[in-house]
């Protein structure tokens, strides 16, 4: 058998990244800022979005793409809270969204009526870290019920994120959760990480979050 070696040296994520660049370009041309919400399951991404949609959904022209392994439950929950645009992606077993799915999803949204797009990724602190979806930033959501060492256990996700939301702050008095250590752990992995401390249930800290969203929308002018 004569074996011939073909040099390839091609990045595995190159095709996804090319599609993500196309998504980013379409969103920028439309003046839409996109935030990719990533977290473990149950951190409160959907609850955070429900409250956000109710409070500033109309003001900021928010649309949402939700990703779930099965069911459209999150999209249905959000659609009950808003007349804004909500598009569901059911990944059918895949543990993350990819740029092709987001590209398809945004064609179903009216971008001319949208200034802020949330992509609610599949709940998983590992896989979504590797896929660029064309977002402006990743926002990692974690909660005080999860343990303060989460950033050390899942460093890639916390490195990839530009912002962190620490949610369920209303439960803090009932838990042995070391808030200072949690923030220190996250900043050990990513010193530039900007934090928000929220309770989607009581509304604690949500005004800071809304002000941040307003900043993001103001800063995004159509290319």
């Amino acid at each position, binding site marked *: *058998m*004569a074996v011939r070696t073909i040099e*390839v*040296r091609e990045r595995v994520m190159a*095709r996804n990244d090319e599609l993500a660049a196309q998504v980013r370009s379409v969103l920028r041309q439309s003046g839409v800022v996109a935030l990719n919400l990533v977290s473990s399951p149950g951190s409160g991404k959907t609850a955070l979005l429900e409250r956000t949609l109710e409070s500033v959904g109309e003001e900021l022209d928010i649309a949402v793409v939700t990703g779930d392994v099965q069911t459209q439950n999150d999209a249905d929950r959000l659609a009950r809270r808003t007349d804004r645009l909500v598009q569901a992606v059911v990944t059918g077993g895949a*543990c993350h969204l990819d740029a092709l799915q987001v590209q398809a999803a945004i064609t179903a949204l009216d971008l001319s009526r949208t200034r802020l797009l949330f992509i609610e990724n599949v709940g998983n602190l590992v896989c979504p870290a*590797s896929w660029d979806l064309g977002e402006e930033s990743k926002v990692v959501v974690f909660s005080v019920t999860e343990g303060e060492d989460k950033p050390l256990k899942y460093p890639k996700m916390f490195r990839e994120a530009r912002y962190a939301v620490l949610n369920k702050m209303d439960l803090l008095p009932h838990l042995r959760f070391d808030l200072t250590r949690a923030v220190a752990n996250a900043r050990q992995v990513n010193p530039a990480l900007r934090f928000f401390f929220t309770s989607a249930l009581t509304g604690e800290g949500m005004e800071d979050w809304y002000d941040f969203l307003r900043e993001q929308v103001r800063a995004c002018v159509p290319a």
Partner: protein
Amino acid sequence: MHELSVALEICRIAEEKLGPAQVNRLVALGVEVGDQAGIEPDNLVFCLEALLGAPPFGSARPVLTRLPGDALRVSYLEVDDGGPDD
């Protein structure tokens, strides 16, 4: 968990490079995996072995090389040219 998605993309790249006439002559597929790439190597090998052992491939074997950093690339393809050994 996402290693199957990554393995599918690696196989797509190999198919694209080789074309239909050569794809079943693939004997080895080299992949470089960084230790910060978020990939579990044994899991990736398991997925690649399953995919490379089925059509359109013949029975190619994956060869993983571990590197520092976050690299994740297809590095080479080894193809049986069908001729006698040199």
